């Protein structure tokens, strides 16, 4: 069987035990294939399926679900989702960079504790955190009160039920995915490199632009992907922070499966979401390949 032929054999490693390792791998792989890959294929199949009179999905070949995606109502949501997700990426980068930089370079022996203090709550219950965030950003919440106190907001300023609220929710939800890879990149960065940069370029700003930033580009790229993926598929933030005019593609999908009961359309929307994400991933991979190729030269 071709699959069992060694893909590459280098050095001394022997194939004596491959048979047993295949058995180790098989249950997990079959499980993932059976549940995950099969279910994703099912989504794709159902995207071109139909429904019967009772709303139950039927397999078939009907492009009405796919064609419906061209409806301006949906393209608008897609465009908005994309906009929110990209904006979230940009803001996360702007926040995560100084935080990761400060901790990596000035954290001293508290470095690990500080990063853990960021990571631990982020992996704790997402819903409760988002709910708490919505309370903080509410009209009577501490953020708006503080802004009003310094005159940056007036009585009519709102965060909830606006696009600002939704993006704030997405940022709060996923900024850790930017901090971790950036921190890792900055950690690896040799401090003497920055000092050498000071000698070479003088000012800290030029040093940052010519030394620090290029050295952490890969970390930032990884962070952008890690934030973009969940932000694009999120529906909680729009639900808790936004109003009817701020819904994202995730809310549409949820709606088609739970309220609207239009599964083929829901599946088509899901495939559309996957398509956008795959394009993003592809762009990232091409970018890193290019970077790696340049680094080799």
């Amino acid at each position, binding site marked *: 069987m071709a699959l069992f032929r*060694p893909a*590459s*054999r*280098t050095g*001394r490693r*022997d194939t*004596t035990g491959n048979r047993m390792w295949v058995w180790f791998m098989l249950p997990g792989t079959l499980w993932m294939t059976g549940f995950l890959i099969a279910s994703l294929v099912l989504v794709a199949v159902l995207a071109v399926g139909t429904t019967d009179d009772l709303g139950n999905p039927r397999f078939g070949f009907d492009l009405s679900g796919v064609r419906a995606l061209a409806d301006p109502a949906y393209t608008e949501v897609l465009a908005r989702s994309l906009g929110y997700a990209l904006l979230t990426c940009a803001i996360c980068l702007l926040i995560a960079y100084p935080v990761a930089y400060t901790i990596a370079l000035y954290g001293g022996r508290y470095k690990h504790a500080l990063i853990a203090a960021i990571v631990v709550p982020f992996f704790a219950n997402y819903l409760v955190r988002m709910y708490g965030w919505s309370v903080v950003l509410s009209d009577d919440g501490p953020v708006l009160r503080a802004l009003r106190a310094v005159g940056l907001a007036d009585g009519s300023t709102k965060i909830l039920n606006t696009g600002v609220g939704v993006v704030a929710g997405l940022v709060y939800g996923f900024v850790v995915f930017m901090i971790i890879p950036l921190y890792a990149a900055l950690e690896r960065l040799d401090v003497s490199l920055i000092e050498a940069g000071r000698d070479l370029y003088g000012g800290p700003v030029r040093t940052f632009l010519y030394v620090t930033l290029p050295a952490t580009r890969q970390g930032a790229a990884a962070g952008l992907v890690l934030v973009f993926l969940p932000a694009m598929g999120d529906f909680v933030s729009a639900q808790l922070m936004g109003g009817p005019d701020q819904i994202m593609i995730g809310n549409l999908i949820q709606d088609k499966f739970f309220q609207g009961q239009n599964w083929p359309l829901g599946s088509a929307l899901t495939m559309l979401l996957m398509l956008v994400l795959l394009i993003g991933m592809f762009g990232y991979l091409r970018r890193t390949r290019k970077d790696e190729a340049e680094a080799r030269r």
Partner: protein
Amino acid sequence: MDATPAVRLDGVSKRFADSSAVHRLDLDIEAGHFFSLLGPSGCGKTTSLRMIGGFSDPSEGSVLLAGEDVTALPPNRRNVNTVFQSYALFDHLSVADNVAFGLKRQGVAKAEIRQRVGEMLDLVQLAGLADRRPRTLSGGQRQRVALARALVNRPAVLLLDEPLAALDLKLRRQMQVELKQIQREVGITFVFVTHDQDEALTMSDRIAVMNEGRIEQCGTPEDVYEHPATRFVASFMGTSNLMTGTYRAGEVALEQGPALPVGARTGIADGTAVSVSVRPEKIWLSDFEPGMSMLRGVIRETVYSGPTTTYLIELAPGVTLSVLEQNTARARMEDRWSGGETVEFGWRPEHCLVLA
């Protein structure tokens, strides 16, 4: 005496996807010997050892242990044990449990396990450290644990894969002596892989010198050193003055320089391209004997290093010989030379090797 070799490799080859590591190896290792596989890295010595241990399947040929074909048997069913280069100790077990691991696998009774582990830890001088974790030991101590863990099973053959490579020079010398003593004491056949020719010379009963997957020469340390069979062995074992030329009627005409008198050699046809090898310590600078091959050259460099002095003597433009003189009590001061002097030197004909 039992004539069946402890280990026999019969036409063993090992090919990897992109290269050949061992090429048609035939090798007998006598029971009770300290046997070394010596060669530069990548010469196939470790691969050969792994095939004896059962960690690597030969592409062709067979492996016999005490006359029995074990080619198809997994490591756990071969009566050999291995001391790995990385020691490969079990970090989650104490030193004593590491040593007891093999006995437990064999189902040896608890009381006997305790006794044998104790004896073995005594033998390798680790008696006080039985309850320690391997991670807390020094490199030398870890090496002893690995040795004890393998020896306690009383294997027919012990395989050692560069076990001293990770130790510093002083500790290495000490362990060389100790390892040899232990081997004599337990009487087990040791197959020792190393790239260090000094180590192989001092410890072994027999040495197989390997290069590019083949055995170049197999013999006693003296044999291999004094009578290298090939140019590779001559250059790999210690330093050698190697010169190339053409053999003709008892002389080798060097590519550059004079013809060296080497005596009539049977088995070498006139006109054959050959290498000539003379060890630096086999060249005389004084007190010549009759019948020696005599030459003349200019001393270009003297390198004094305590007990010995090395002279670099230019025989002809481009041909420089290294000559080692002992600075013993019997050596006379006036027998020291300095740079620029033209000197006579010579060697006994039997010390000049002609390698086809």
